[in-house]
């Protein structure tokens, strides 16, 4: 069996966190590839259904470039400790 990899979904507002993620990329700060970023026009755009769908797909739920990279690293480590999301089996 292949080793479990965390699946971290970041829903980022275009005007704040996404800018940080973009900056993190531009400045070549590394953050784990387990992190996937979805850009939204505003955090108000996020429907509860988005989060539920992400969780059902096995995701685990998170502004400044370096800060983004650091938080994502930390998040990845925490998630690895927590292990896979059991909702995915539902």
């Amino acid at each position: 069996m292949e080793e479990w990899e965390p699946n971290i979904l970041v829903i980022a507002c275009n005007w704040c966190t996404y800018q940080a993620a973009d900056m993190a990329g531009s400045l070549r700060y590394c953050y784990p590839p387990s992190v996937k970023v979805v850009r939204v026009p505003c955090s108000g755009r996020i429907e509860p259904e988005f989060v539920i769908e992400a969780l059902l797909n096995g995701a685990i739920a998170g502004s400044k470039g370096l800060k983004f990279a650091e938080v994502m690293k930390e998040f990845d480590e925490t998630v690895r400790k927590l292990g896979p999301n059991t909702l995915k089996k539902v």
Partner: protein
Amino acid sequence: MYPDKEEDPFNPKVLRELCEALGAEAPYYSKLVDCCGMGALRSTDPEKSFTLVKEKLECIKDELDADIIVTTCSSCLIQLDDAQERLRKEGKLNFSIPVLHYVQLLALCMGFDPNQVAEISVTPRDEIINKIIKG
């Protein structure tokens, strides 16, 4: 699972179509998807937050000279309505555009009592509400 009618969230059309269904014109303007400045910014850096909302309001005034601003976000509603009055009081804004939640606009168009469905606002709305009621 989630049927999303919005094909491109960065060129949103659903709200504009819903307004058009009520007989209004809802044209595009260049800061349509720009941030209203609410969210965490309003509590952490009010000055920047007011700069964002001022730019958005000025764009709405300059490009559309709108009679009304309609939003489906209660957070944007508070910001666009309340910050407008603050900016006016500080002499940073010399116009006034009433703001309504889409549901309030719909209720008014369906003939509900404005005092029950659209009473609370900072920026005056009476004029536009009377205009809507008269049809």
